[in-house]
């Protein structure tokens, strides 16, 4: 069987998350629990459905992954973009984006025009 991990969107903020080895839902695919067989995949899906019931995530599903250079990587391009962020905004990628607490506080900005 192709290796699989579980992805979903987090209910509260909608961000893409993955079922991690410690049972939590992480924003990064790197710590995902990987199913190597159908039975494990089914068990993970059951766990994800419970998380859906518990209002942690929405719409969980299995995605195909492969190990590339020691990294877990989705095999489908759509899932690769979900895992990394919009390809056209590297500044907003999962790796690079850091919320700016100052602007979030006020939203204010003076352009001086």
């Amino acid at each position: 069987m192709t290796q699989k991990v579980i992805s979903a969107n987090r209910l509260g903020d909608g961000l893409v998350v993955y079922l991690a080895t410690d049972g939590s839902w992480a924003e990064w695919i790197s710590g995902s629990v990987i199913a190597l067989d159908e039975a494990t995949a089914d068990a993970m899906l059951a766990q994800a459905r419970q998380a859906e019931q518990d209002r942690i995530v929405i719409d969980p599903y299995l995605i195909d992954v492969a190990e590339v250079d020691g990294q877990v990587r989705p095999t489908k391009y759509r899932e690769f973009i979900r895992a990394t962020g919009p390809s056209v905004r590297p500044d907003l990628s999962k790796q690079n984006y850091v919320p700016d607490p100052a602007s979030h506080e006020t939203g204010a900005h003076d352009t001086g025009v």
Partner: protein
Amino acid sequence: MYIYDEIDQTLVDQRVNQFRDQVRRRIAGELSEDEFKPLRLMNGVYLQLHAYMLRVAIPYGTLSAEQLRKLAWIARKYDRGYGHFTTRQNLQYNWPKLEELPDLLAELAGVQMHALQTSGNCIRNVTADQYAGVAADEVIDPRIHAEIIRQWSTLHPEFTFLPRKFKIAVTGAETDRAAVKVHDIGLIAKRDAAGELGFEVIVGGGQGRTPMVGPTIRDFLPEKYLLSYLEAVLRVYNRLGRRDNMYKARIKIQVHETGAEKFTEMVEREWEQIRDTAVELPAGERERIAAFFNPPLYDATGDGAEILARDVAGDADFARWVSTNVAAHKADGYAIANISLKPIGGVPGDASAEQMDAVAALAERFSLSEIRVTHEQNLVLPHVRQDDLYAVWQTLKSYDLHTPNLGLVSDMIACPGLDYCALANARSIPLAQEISQRFADLDRQHDIGELKLKISGCINACGHHHVGHIGILGVDRKGEEYYQITLGGSGAEDASLGDIIGPAFPYDRVVNAIETLVDAYLGVRADGERFLDTYRRLGADPFKEALYGTH
């Protein structure tokens, strides 16, 4: 522009409170996602690839400076510092949090904005010519009737659960800048021989997987019957639309399958029954609404034209911007300034919060506090004195909003595509970026002339590829992004659908293919011919030959 009365404001405020409670119940577990999804969609909240997405309605593309400044503020506080202007003159935020959305919507309501009917099978945000009220070739400001339709269609109980979504576009000008022939209903204001105002009614246009140029079902509908006639069209559709198959549920399929003539008869029959009893505007209401769109007091004093001529003569870059991005205004001494949201290598339609603030400030100072959003994903300052244009341009320049490419090859429409959209099969934005970089040389772009290039990342055609002079459609071929090219489409008054030119190209061959097509056009065009004109004159053969060497 239109200002909410107490009824408008109460409706929007109550809706925010209702949604606040719905979000609370969802987070508390009182509503399942299945129960909540239709409720959030009715408030413009989608779940996209990376996060929730909020689609904010900008009725007929008109914004005040205060509203645009609020959109910038929201982008910073509740999103990631930018927004995306769409082909329906709306604004999309890509990263709002569900738990913060009620507060976000309350902020919008504070400036008379909302996200109602930006999703769902209802009458969507009504769109209009972005030059409404300022175009020289206009019969009437189409926003008067767009606003009347907005009020009539907002929470209309009979038309809240239509077979499918329903889009209405209105123009008051001969030149069609609102793509009215590819909408569910398109309205063109005109006057009859007696000088009475009325509308040409076009029904059943649209794009998506079954593109259609809509037929005219009535050449002239007297103005006073507008709402009863729309109601008749909607009733026929609501009764007979294909609710059993979402791919056949749009009115265009019904019009096509029934036949325009028979469909028209059905509408006319329905209309005969209701025309004198249907809900019409209360007496005085049309005038009350129209008064909001009275022309502002223009001040044509001074030597605007002379000063502009001097500024143009003194700065070649400014002169180029004026020649492409500035349009004639109906008032002496004024101009329409188009702001391109297509910088070379940029994301079509995206604007940062800083850019939005800058445009809002420019509008306040130089454009009577008004901004327009175009369906081609640009912004417009509609009332700029000619002698202020140079100052406007200099500020635009410092915010990278000065690209002189309106209507040229780099002024592309591109949908969000696979970078953001859950429905997309392929990316649109990176392709748009690469094409604009390939044609970065503005001299070359100007030599090529008007060329409407439009890119969609899937068959739903949000990027209007069917009506691009060159259209690009992303498809998924066994997990690979491929792109089908169409030629000869137009969304203007000479509307037509593009023809598929041949086999699709993989991502890394598309930019070369576009350049090949443009070069082929340059080789055979006659004097003064646009790309579209040459295609229409010669047909597909020279382009096929250039791309595939088939002859």
